[in-house]
């Protein structure tokens, strides 16, 4: 399949090309937004056409007998393992956002008529491992996550690959964070070279008094974009953190919309980006405060360090506000390592190269240390230092 064939097609043509008999509303939504291209705002700084205009091998998504394990394992879009007692199953997604800004969100749903549903009961820690084993493939799947009221769930998301190359992964979550509950999602992604590219298009609904924490630690190669839409109800809160470390010619980042719908809702979005080589980082993030969201607090900040003259960061923090009764701030800084800090370390006998490494790791640690669980915090630190030291052997 070559996804570029869907470019500029109407709903009827799309249905025919994708062999879709029903789901006309979704097809219409996708046809209206269209396949993203260079001028699509969220994809403007991301080489999406290069990823779409490829002949990919398509896979059959045959439900697998789910083995009992300590984590949820999804291999090439199919669940193979899950913890005992956890309800993990496959069925059509009934809660698709009909006002998403991302065309690939709808394409993902069209290509994945049955979503993986994960229902988390009670307070729980859940690990989700995504494995990709196929080269030159289009791997598409959608995951629906829901929790219970008054419960607190933490999810750790990790990625593994075999010896693959040139694969495109289209996946994403539809998350429903129940009233008075908390869901923490910590995503760690590391890879080298051009094993796979990814567009992860998410939708997160945060109900009244609920709290969602989304931490994305992206130390990957090649291309990936996280497309995120969060809607906040009354007294709901989102804490979104993004740490990016890129090298070579990789292009990765986040395009997001956080929408305050309920009164007293709060949002905090922090992006830290470390770019080396000829890498390009993207942080294109909008916080929108609707008329219904009086007394909102919104905070957005992006800090980027460029370690090479050819590295490039696109930081676009944006606020769109329709009320007066709120507190909001946003800002972005892009620069090099702090000379005063470098000198201080050198003045204690630490070499320039070591001092530089210490400061980069420190910059990353300020976000990594927001992960409360010590074991996972250590794991993320190790992953970061591994990729960073591999790129800075001097």
């Amino acid at each position, binding site marked *: 399949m070559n996804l570029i064939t869907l470019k500029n097609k109407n709903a009827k043509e799309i249905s025919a090309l994708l062999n879709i008999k029903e789901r006309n509303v979704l097809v219409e939504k996708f046809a209206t937004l269209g396949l993203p291209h260079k001028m699509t705002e969220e994809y403007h700084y991301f080489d999406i056409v290069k990823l779409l205009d490829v002949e990919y091998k398509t896979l059959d998504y045959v439900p697998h007998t789910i083995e009992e394990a300590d984590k949820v394992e999804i291999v090439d879009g199919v669940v193979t393992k899950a913890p005992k007692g956890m309800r993990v199953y496959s069925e059509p997604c009934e809660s698709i956002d009909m006002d998403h800004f991302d065309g690939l969100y709808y394409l993902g749903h069209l290509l994945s008529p049955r979503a993986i549903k994960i229902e988390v009961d009670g307070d729980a820690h859940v690990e989700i491992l995504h494995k990709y084993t196929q080269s030159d493939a289009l791997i598409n799947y959608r995951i629906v996550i829901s929790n219970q009221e008054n419960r607190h769930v933490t999810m750790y998301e990790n990625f593994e690959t075999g010896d693959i190359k040139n694969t495109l992964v289209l996946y994403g979550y539809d998350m429903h964070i129940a009233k008075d509950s908390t869901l923490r999602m910590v995503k760690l992604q590391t890879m080298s070279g051009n094993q796979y590219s990814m567009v992860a298009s998410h939708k997160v609904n945060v109900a009244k008094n609920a709290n969602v924490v989304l931490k994305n630690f992206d130390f990957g190669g090649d291309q990936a974009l996280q497309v995120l839409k969060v809607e906040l109800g009354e007294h709901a809160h989102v804490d979104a953190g993004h740490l990016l470390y890129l090298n070579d010619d990789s292009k990765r980042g986040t395009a997001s919309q956080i929408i305050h719908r309920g009164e007293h809702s709060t949002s905090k979005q922090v992006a830290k980006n470390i770019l080396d080589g000829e890498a390009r980082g993207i942080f294109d993030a909008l916080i929108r405060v609707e008329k219904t969201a009086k007394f909102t607090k919104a905070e957005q900040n992006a800090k980027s360090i460029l370690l090479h003259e050819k590295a490039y960061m696109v930081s676009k923090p944006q606020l769109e506000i329709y009320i007066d009764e709120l507190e909001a701030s946003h800002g972005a800084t892009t620069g090099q390592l*702090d000379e005063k800090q470098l*000198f201080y*370390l050198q*003045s*204690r006998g630490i070499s320039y190269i070591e001092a530089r490494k210490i400061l980069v790791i420190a910059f990353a640690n*300020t976000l990594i240390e927001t992960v409360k669980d010590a074991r996972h915090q250590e794991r993320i630190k190790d992953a970061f230092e591994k990729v960073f030291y591999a790129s800075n052997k001097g």
Partner: protein
Amino acid sequence: MSTVMKIDNLQAKIGDKEILKGLNLELEPGKVHAIMGPNGAGKSTLSKTIVGHYDVEVTGGDITYKGKSIVDMDAEERALEGIFLSFQHPVEIPGVNNAYFLRTALNAKLKHQGKEELNAAEFLRAMKKHLEMLGMKSDMISRSLNEGFSGGEKKRNEILQMLILEPEVIILDEIDSGLDIDALRQVSEGINKMKDGKRTFLVITHYSRILDYIEPDYIHVLKDGKVIKTAGPELVPYLEEHGYDGIKED
């Protein structure tokens, strides 16, 4: 007089501004040299020049340390050779664990000296006595380097580094600024502990208060980028009475 450091006709500028204008100074091993002078005399520029700060461009003259010129050395090399500056305003470095930083600095020094590096447990044992003496809580070394530290805590942390790294020439730039009486006493105690007749101190100060705690052997008055007078500690009361304008150039 034997010298550990000799500054000969030193000229230096920051940006386009010439600040040190032919400064001469000799530091005698094991002695405490106080540099006093009015604002803008070049005191902090002198300390920056000795440690190789990136702001300063040396335009003339020389600094020799143990008979070897250091003006072309990197800051890290000077530190490894035993020159230490206690900063007037130590920077905060969020995310760098203080203990990790201190151990990295100590191990860099040990490695430079061809000695075995310390592991975390050995290092923490070595730290304990210093922390107690400086009245520092043990959690200060598990926090980020200087982040959120009070003025007194930052200065104590500077002295802690001095105690650990055991340098030979110690420059204390306005070490008393921002310290209350108790903190000043503890910091001075740490400094006096290092006075073993071998280490040399260069105490840079506006005011004589610190010299009540750290007894100087020499007073050097710096004015308009030059040392205009060198005398013994008897100069301090004279300065208090007459100010810097009352000093006649040697």
